């Protein structure tokens, strides 16, 4: 029997404040009478709201189906990632499953105790001490007093704020606050854990700790529903992913496949992994077939293949291609996308001044980027070959390679760089003038 059975779940929201038209366009007299009758109508309209806030006769143009006819089933012990862009309905879905929001239509059947973590530190009060907040937050999350008391020492040890446990949390640094809040949630042991984006907070070391805690929770046989924008965490944690777009379920299956369809907007059909599948065999490619990218080597300055690269170091890309017929002056290129599918860099041989002339058979071209400034994070590469006039794609292999960028290394290791501060770093010279 599935732990969570969702059948045709839908949620309707009304846009605007009770869906009245734009006031600026109305004639003056309407504005005046509206000022008198409007509040009265609003008042009576609100005092007796229809089901789920729906007034008696809603106008269709005000309708927003935040969720529409979503159905799926989750078996005990599964870890499922929910992906989709902002406003795709992920959070609405989780709020319905946790019982915060009522659906407009459809039904969800949930078997087991649900622990939800839609926010870090729900109910934390700044004036209360860490200790008081642990008990308050724990009971909001559904733990009993004895259960919290039993786990209290563990929670405090996990959070690393022992010394400040009797200090009001308003005196905490944001890091301490988040650690304590996550520590409480990590010690909940529900049958079903629902988590929304909590890993987006805290420093790298603590994020890893959170991931480990989630893996530990998953290891106990707990069913985990995990919403995130960070594809890498979803890929790492979940075997299955569900992809929502505009409130509809558009993908449900093995994580690699669903993430790929999310990043590219295409329909996924395979479970190939960019870390292991040779580029020549990569499934998602487009082009007229006159050439084929058969390899993409990602290497450092010394030519050693790398999976990870510190920011500011030299990147050496070698693109191996096979041309089935001669092509004059083709353009080679590599697109680099971030973890959310946005294209950050577009490297192309024409920008580098390469005139390859007439090309046939096996060819390799090398591109060198000095001081690659991609901020720390996960990136994906899409190599491509076009005709010289850029009108036709010979081959384009979508998101077929991974690279993780790290912080500064070597003599620059003391430079701080935070992925939330920017996208691309460039060397800059400074002087007083």
């Amino acid at each position, binding site marked *: 029997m599935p732990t969570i059975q969702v059948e045709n779940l839908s949620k309707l929201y009304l846009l605007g404040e009770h869906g009245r038209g734009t006031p600026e366009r109305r004639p003056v007299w309407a504005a005046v009478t509206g000022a008198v009758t409007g509040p009265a109508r609003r008042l009576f309209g609100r*005092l007796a709201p229809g089901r789920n806030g729906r007034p008696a006769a809603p106008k269709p143009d005000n309708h927003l189906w935040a969720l529409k006819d979503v159905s799926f089933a989750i078996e*005990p012990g599964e870890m499922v990632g929910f992906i989709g862009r902002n406003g795709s309905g992920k959070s609405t879905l989780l709020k319905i499953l946790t019982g915060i929001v009522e659906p407009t239509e459809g039904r969800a059947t949930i078997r087991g105790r649900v622990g939800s973590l839609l926010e870090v530190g729900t109910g934390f009060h700044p004036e209360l001490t860490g200790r008081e907040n642990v008990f308050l937050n724990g009971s909001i999350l559904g733990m009993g007093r004895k259960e919290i008391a039993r786990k209290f020492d563990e929670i405090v040890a996990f959070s690393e704020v022992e010394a400040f446990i009797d200090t009001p949390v308003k005196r905490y640094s944001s890091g301490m606050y988040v650690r304590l809040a996550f520590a409480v949630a990590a010690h909940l042991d529900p049958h079903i854990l629902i988590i929304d984006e909590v890993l987006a907070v805290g420093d790298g070391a603590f994020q890893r700790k959170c991931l480990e805690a989630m893996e530990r929770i998953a290891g106990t046989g707990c069913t985990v529903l995990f919403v995130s924008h960070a594809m890498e965490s979803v890929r790492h944690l979940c075997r299955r992913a569900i992809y929502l777009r505009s409130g509809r379920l558009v993908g449900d299956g093995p994580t690699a496949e669903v993430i790929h369809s999310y990043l590219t907007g295409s329909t996924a059909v395979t479970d190939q992994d960019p870390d292991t599948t040779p580029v020549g065999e990569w499934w998602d490619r487009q082009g007229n077939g006159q050439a084929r990218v058969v390899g993409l080597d990602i290497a450092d300055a010394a030519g050693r293949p790398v999976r990870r690269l510190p920011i500011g170091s030299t990147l050496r890309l070698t693109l191996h291609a096979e041309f089935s017929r001669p092509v004059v002056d083709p353009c080679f290129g590599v697109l680099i996308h971030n973890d959310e599918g946005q294209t950050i860099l577009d490297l192309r041989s024409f920008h580098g001044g390469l005139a390859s002339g007439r090309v046939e058979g096996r060819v390799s071209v090398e591109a060198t980027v000095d001081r690659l400034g991609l901020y720390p994070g996960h990136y994906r590469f899409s190599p491509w070959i076009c005709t010289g006039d850029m009108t036709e794609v010979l081959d384009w292999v979508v998101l077929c390679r991974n690279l993780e960028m790290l912080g500064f290394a070597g003599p620059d290791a003391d430079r701080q760089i935070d992925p939330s501060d920017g996208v691309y770093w460039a060397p800059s010279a400074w002087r007083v003038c």
Partner: protein
Amino acid sequence: MNTNRSAPPAPPDAPLLPVGGDPPAEVGNGPAVADVPVRVIEATKGWRLIDFGELWRCRELLYYLALRDIKVRYKQTSLGAAWAVVKPLAVMLAFSIFFTRLARPDTPYALFAFAGLLPWMLFAEGVSAASGSVLANQHLVTKASFPRLLLPLSASTVAVVDFLIASGVLVLLLAWFGVFPGWQIVFAPFLVLGLICASVGLGILLSALVVVVRDLRHAVPFVVQLGLFLTPTVYMPADKVVSETAATWLPLNPAYGLIANFRRSVLGEPLDLYSLAVSGTVAVLLLVVGCLYFRRVERIFPDII
């Protein structure tokens, strides 16, 4: 084939094939599903009364929410909980200075006023705190799942705690003025319960209304202030001050009959059964109506808050 002059073509954003709820490839070994709670979530409609079972299961959360409200109230103040005593005392002093001519010869006016102000503050502060409780806890309403009724209930406890503290002062005042309460004092706890019932009921009703009609948020505080004058807190019982008609209708204010009789029980006078009956009935009705309305609209709180 898509063509693009500057870059490889963007992938077509064609509608994807809908993918149904395909069963996953692998399934782990979850905990035994034999004795776990099963919850069905779907749209509900109509009126509902309180789900007492759910409230009982969440009693510890009520305790921690109440504890939070009580602790936060006087945190970082030097007087702390003494404020619960200072406020009614200050009002009593102010009224004693200006209204002593209203006093009856047999009772010291200060004691008379305090015995009225004390339950009034229980009622008024309970209503004020509870009425704003859902709005004040927006983050909880939108981020956590628990019986929403706990919010006005926990907010009301603050007024009860203040009342219990200030009751000590009433005892001291009685001793100071040498007034010894008669056997009627046994009714006092029940009258306090009635007042709590009225204040919680009105608070629950208002806490839901304030979410739905935000304008009320501005109306509640000053209506509560006006209520002081519709309630026999600092003046004589209505029958002696105003008309017979007023005495008939004023008990519809639940605080009226309950507070008047609380003072009578403390000062050892016979209870006024008419006002007690009317006000008591109104108090119970308020609680029932408040809960009904709250339960009806609580399902849309996270959508409209």
